[in-house]
């Protein structure tokens, strides 16, 4: 890893050069919140964002992604990854991306995800302001922040810049990167430690303790109680950086013989998600709201841990912020069960 300093004044030039090179997606303001959008000018960049409405996974798996086009019996895969730069990704979202990388790699390689992923250079940045529901400092500690190419930490008068990969190296000519002092490196480490410590919300137990205890509460009535006001809207899934379920559909151009097959994000909290067609009709294997609610929390705390090496929740707090019924917060559910 190489480390540099980039002054506040030089950041603008760096970002402007990046924009000239390839599309840059970065946090920008949208009313009172923030979103990852293509950056038109460096003035729109908001590295002081708390969190974005949707996580950056949308760049690798768009909400609707074409898989295959077909016409009169002939068909072709839709792969057209464009080079891009994803700028200003917070550490918790970087963790989530590395989980997605593995999910789309293991057993069966997902070429649609990975061609977009491969074409993207990821520049992370530290959390300067906390989202009101964030708890990233106390969750998923077993997973390192990795997979990104460059990382910027705000320190006095500028940024400490870590360059981690060849893709990151390739961006060095675009900015006026200068030498760093030992003190600046230490300051940046402190900034990131503080960001973890200052999360407004906290889990009190380790992932392993949580995994075991939550599983023991599989049959508990806590799920029913907690999910009483759930609208089954699926918003908690949609905003989650580690949710990746999808549905596949065919769409006709003019007649059934031509069109495209696409996938779009799906949500296990919705009622239709677990419908199965069986003999003479259909059956739903998670018909009750409580079962679906439990499925999400179990998925975030226990079902995928062996596969991922840690829980499938990075503590961004998006689900809890988006839930109209205010019941999706993993912290309140987990802490409640852990205290029992």
């Amino acid at each position, binding site marked *: 890893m190489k480390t540099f300093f980039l002054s506040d004044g030089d950041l603008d030039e760096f970002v402007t050069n990046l924009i000239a090179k390839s599309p840059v997606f970065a946090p920008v303001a949208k009313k009172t919140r923030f979103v990852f959008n293509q950056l038109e000018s460096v003035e729109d960049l908001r590295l002081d964002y708390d969190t974005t409405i949707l996580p950056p996974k949308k760049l690798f798996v768009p909400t609707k992604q074409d898989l295959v086009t077909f016409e009169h019996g002939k068909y072709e895969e839709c792969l057209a990854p464009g080079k891009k730069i994803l700028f200003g990704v917070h550490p918790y979202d970087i963790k989530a991306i590395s989980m997605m990388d593995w999910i789309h790699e293991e057993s*069966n390689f997902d*070429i649609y995800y990975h061609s977009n992923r491969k074409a993207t250079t990821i520049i992370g940045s530290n959390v300067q302001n906390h989202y009101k529901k964030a708890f990233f400092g106390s969750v998923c500690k077993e997973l390192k922040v990795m997979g990104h190419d460059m990382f910027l930490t705000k320190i006095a008068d500028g940024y400490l810049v870590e360059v981690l990969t060849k893709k990151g190296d390739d961006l060095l000519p675009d900015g006026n990167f200068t030498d760093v002092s030992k003190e600046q490196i230490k300051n940046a480490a402190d900034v990131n430690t503080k960001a973890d410590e200052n999360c407004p919300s906290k889990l009190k137990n380790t992932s392993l303790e949580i995994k075991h205890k939550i599983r023991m509460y599989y*049959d508990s009535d806590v799920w029913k109680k907690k999910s009483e006001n759930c609208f089954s809207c699926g918003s908690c899934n949609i905003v989650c950086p580690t949710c990746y379920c999808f549905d596949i559909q065919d769409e006709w151009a003019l007649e059934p013989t031509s069109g495209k097959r696409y996938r779009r994000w799906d949500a296990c909290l919705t009622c239709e998600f677990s419908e199965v067609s069986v003999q003479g009709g259909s059956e739903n294997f998670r018909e009750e709201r409580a079962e679906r609610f439990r499925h999400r929390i179990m998925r975030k705390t226990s079902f995928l841990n062996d596969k991922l090496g840690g829980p499938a929740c990075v503590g961004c707090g998006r689900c809890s912020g988006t839930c109209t019924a205010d019941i999706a917060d993993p912290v309140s559910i987990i802490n409640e069960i852990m205290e029992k």
Partner: protein
Amino acid sequence: MSCSSNHDKNIFLPKNAIIRKASQMTAFETHFTLKMEDESEFIYEPGQIVEAGLFGYGEIPLGLSSSPTQQGSFELVVREVGKVSKALCALKAGDTMTIRGPLGKGFPVSEFVGQDVLIVAGGIGLCPTRSMIRYIMDRRDEFKDFKLLFGARSPDELLFEDDLAYWRCSSDVNYLETVDKPNDRWKGNIGVITTLFEGIDHLDPATRVIICGPPIMYKFVIAQLAKYNISEHHIFVDLERRMKCGVGKCGHCQINDKYVCMDGPVFRYSDIKDLEEAI
């Protein structure tokens, strides 16, 4: 974490298969015999699944109905229940459908070799289990006693009439059948599938068992098996779930930490009996 994935292959891209024969078995089920368009041999194991599809409509997961012991073609049965299956059922000999697969884990055949085998199939549960039934019949010497129990709702819903006729008189299989609702011509057993166990005094506790049928059937059949002291470790269930991708990504088939399309569709009963949503 093992990683055996092939980075060049597109797991969502199917291949074409030509329909060599399409015959309507009942009011709802059509039986297809297929061959890959590129003339390659379709290689699979009994109990595995494919995603069968038609561009413009979509894909549906289906268990293979034929046995790999039969070369040159493979068979599927499509039950008309939705948009995709309706479009597939309208296809005729000479038409093309798309195939992705084989997918998932089938029956662990080697565990059945040298053992008594009991297969319990309800309704269209006969379609995927037929892959194993035919496998056993084709390599009969490798297995010991073979019993097959089949239950349908009515005589009109009996599938694979030619097979049934053969099994009824074959000495290679002890075949028992029943229907819930008989018609005037029906002379056989009447009642739910578990009533067939009345005719079985003894089963070797080491018997390997396969169960496939409507969700309600599993619990009752498993309760019967307990009476013969059959180990849950030797019972295999074939689960149907609404699969989408078939390759472990879309999450639709997930039951707790198991994915039906990757870990199944065939599961050892002892592995899934505590999964509340499984059966």
